[in-house]
């Protein structure tokens, strides 16, 4: 059941009717939301519900034990077992084939491990990470022991179930206490999130995917340099529109149900460094990786070399989280290396001196002081292109395809269009516009949002508000293609 479909609209209105009837009755409301979430999840395959329920019960039991036991060593062993069980589940469904293939290659073609050919349950990476965070936070004493019902709702709550954001127990569970947030609803704010999410996914991501990116990535060797370049930028914007569109809708839906989710994206392509990029892109994953992986590896407490190693390891494993393929390993490695190099250069006096000499040289040539925007612009250009180039293996199906794409980008035929014919004024204009929005300062966006959207809409009669939302919805339907491709992040 995808968000931008008639099926989901019917489902959500039904759920909301139940929510309206039960919101004042705490326990009944929680049970109803759990049932709705399992219906939502079972829509893909009812067998997945058993997996989700099993993971829920096991992790809750571990957390209960962690609360009950006080002996430090026993608690450590318990949390390690719980995390191992979660990762084991993820490993079987997601990584068995990958490692079996890698091992078979190492052993030679004649000795192959049996393939399981398991279907990857939708959203397994997301709910497993949330389960791990609950157990670890319980171990760290950051969350209180909660009832099975609360924990079940936390893990399965349908707006975030299949593609995030990765909500922490400490953010979600306090909201289940009392009913204050479920009776005072910021409809206009929710409409903003849902409306813009739908536009990003249905119109921007689908158009860029179908018209610009897919034809080029399908046969990169046949595309011109210009087509490859446009596809490179196009995919960066497509995956942003697709994934942030999903989480925008999720945030808006949860808001209507009286639950607040953390923000997941903040104009990531306006970042001036890779570190900055990860503060703005999939923020809930990056903080998860930071708090549960990077910190566990030792973080920056064991010297510079260990810090670089930890950065690299964190990002490689973060890459693998996205999928069991070498292409994701390469993507993670590029980001890990970039983070390490950035950190190395940031503290280097040599680099600082070189930059100062460069600015002075520019000043001497132009006869004036080097403009203040020069440094940030250079940093933005470098960061943006590292991120875009790293998306190539992320999108490609194989390292061979990645190689074809990158080779074509440098050595491919010139000219505007070849076989793919993906370069059009609309495509270039859409990419430029989407990128331009990322570069607008947050304060101005905030001001524009308040002045032109939230304040005027909030003053309108609720019926008129609804009519305008309906109008927007029909505009999105009209501008989008028939049918909606699944969200890219569903496979992670």
């Amino acid at each position, binding site marked *: 059941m995808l968000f931008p479909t008639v099926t989901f609209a019917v489902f959500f209105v039904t759920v909301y009717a139940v929510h309206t009837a039960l919101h004042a009755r705490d326990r009944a409301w929680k049970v109803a939301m759990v049932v709705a979430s399992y219906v939502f999840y079972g829509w893909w395959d009812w067998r997945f519900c058993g997996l989700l329920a099993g993971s829920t019960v096991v992790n809750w039991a571990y957390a209960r034990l962690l609360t009950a036991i006080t002996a430090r060593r026993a608690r450590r062993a318990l949390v390690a077992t719980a995390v191992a069980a979660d990762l084991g589940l993820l490993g079987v469904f997601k990584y068995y084939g990958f490692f079996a*293939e890698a091992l078979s290659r190492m052993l030679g073609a004649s000795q192959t491990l049996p393939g399981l050919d398991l279907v990857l349950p939708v959203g397994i990476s997301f709910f497993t990470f949330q389960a791990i965070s609950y157990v670890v936070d319980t171990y760290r004493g950051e969350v209180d022991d909660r009832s099975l019902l609360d924990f079940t709702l936390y893990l399965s709550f349908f707006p975030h179930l299949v593609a995030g954001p990765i909500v922490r127990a*400490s953010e979600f569970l306090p909201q289940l206490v009392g009913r204050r947030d479920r*009776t005072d*609803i910021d409809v206009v704010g929710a409409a903003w999130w849902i409306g813009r999410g739908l536009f990003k996914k249905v119109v921007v991501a689908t158009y860029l995917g179908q018209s610009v990116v897919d034809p080029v990535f399908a046969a990169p060797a046949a595309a011109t340099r210009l087509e490859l370049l446009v596809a490179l930028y196009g995919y960066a914007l497509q995956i942003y529109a697709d994934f942030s569109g999903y989480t925008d809708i999720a945030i808006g839906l949860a808001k209507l149900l009286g639950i607040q989710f953390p923000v997941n994206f903040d104009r990531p392509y306006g970042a001036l460094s890779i570190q900055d990029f990860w503060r703005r892109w999939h923020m809930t994953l990056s903080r998860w990786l930071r708090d549960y992986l990077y910190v566990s590896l030792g973080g920056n407490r064991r010297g510079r070399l260990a810090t670089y190693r930890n950065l690299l390891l964190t990002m490689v494993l973060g890459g693998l989280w996205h999928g069991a393929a070498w292409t994701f390993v390469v993507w993670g490695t590029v980001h890990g290396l970039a983070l390490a190099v950035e950190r190395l250069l940031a503290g280097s006096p040599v680099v600082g001196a070189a930059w100062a000499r460069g600015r002075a040289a520019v000043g001497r040539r132009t006869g004036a002081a080097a403009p203040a925007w020069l440094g940030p612009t250079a940093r933005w250009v470098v960061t943006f292109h590292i991120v875009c180039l790293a998306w190539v293996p992320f999108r490609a199906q194989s390292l061979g395809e990645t190689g074809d794409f990158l080779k074509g980008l440098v050595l491919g035929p010139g000219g505007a269009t070849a076989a793919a014919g993906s370069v059009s004024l609309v495509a270039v204009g859409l990419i430029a516009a989407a990128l331009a929005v990322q570069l607008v300062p947050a304060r101005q966006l*905030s001001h524009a949002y308040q002045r032109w959207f939230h304040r005027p809409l909030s003053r309108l009669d609720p019926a008129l508000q609804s009519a305008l939302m309906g109008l927007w919805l029909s*505009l999105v339907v009209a*501008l989008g293609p028939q049918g909606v*491709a699944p969200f890219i992040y569903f*496979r992670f």
Partner: protein
Amino acid sequence: MSYRFRNRQPHPASRPGPQPVAVLPPPPAPDTPPARGRPGPRTVLCQLLICFTVAVGLSSSHLEATAASQPFGTGRSMALAVAQPLHRLAEAGGLDRPDRALAQLLGREPDGPGPSPAGPIEGASPAAADSAPSASQPGPEPGLHGPPRPASPDPAGPAIGNGGAPIAPAGGNDSGPVPELSMATTASVPSPPVAPAPGLGPDVVDLVPEVDPLAGTGPARPVTPGAKLRIWAGGDSLGEYVGNQLLAPLSNRDLTTVELDFHIGTGLTRPDTYDWQARIDEIMARPERPEALVFMVGGNDNQPMRAGGQNLAVGSEPWLAEYRARAVDLMDSTRPPDGAVGATHLWWIGLPPMRDGERDGLARSIDAIIAEEAAGRPWVTFVDLMPRFSGPEGGFAGTVAGPDGKAKVARAPDGIHITYAGSTWIAEDLWAEIAARWGF
């Protein structure tokens, strides 16, 4: 990513008291006091209903098109029973005008239940291969329709030899024999009896033509830069990967022009969604019609068909007979005209093994039909993907040995689509076959 984690602050949402709405813009925290009091759930429910009513009224044609594209059966009938009156009502009230005006502005065909190159419809055919138009995106889990019954006693389809010269895999083979793509025509295969389609009313007739066994087997014309070979490749998303890979060796050559004509979410079962027969008739009626045709459908055909006023359960005998009739019709539309022997050749690419058992059974039944019908038509070659894409036990395998003998991931995670590598193998073999036939 911030790695300065010391003195980490708890997330604002974990603090006691009222929760902030958003952590970072955009949009910014919309906590400024609204002019009106914020509504409760009852008002919001009413607002949702008004919002959807307006949206449905203004987008009724899309709703009807979505309903019409559902698989034939009760669900579709029920969806249409709701959507059609709504659309008529919207039309009567002129609510569909903005949508039509916008479609006209964008140069699009307004949505309707009639034939149109439609994209995948979520929920329309839950088992449709093109629920995942890109292998980078997983499709919804396949649903299951009626059990397919293999048309051939041999689940792998009839034994088909290679009609032309063996198509050698590119590169060496250092780890044992690698299954080749089997391309079959009647040139070397005795024609099996072609089963006539049973009578199913006016929509279904015995379309098996009287075949001239020599048509299409003559020498092809010389291909020169001044008289390029016209190649057309069409089909669904499964075929699109192969078609796109065909571009790599062909597009930069001076001797060929390639036209790609792929429509995701299509097949032979739903001409109301996209009519391949009409499309093939159209392109074959051109003054400069394509000479080499590459066609691949079937991945979306695990759904009921409608013929003779009946819904035919997927995989049933009448369904298989109707499928055969449609495939035959399509093959015959590509027949070279009299006196133009060898002028046109169709490579019909079969389906690979599927991970889902029922889908796999149907794929083998479809392959068997296409192989049998191609065997009676010299201008048609059936490209059998089963041998190359099968695992050691003959079934689905995500990873198989490539032409160089090295194991490669050949199938997309959805267990339906073929990866870049797998598509490249097929395209390379096809390319060799096309080049050999036209002698360039």
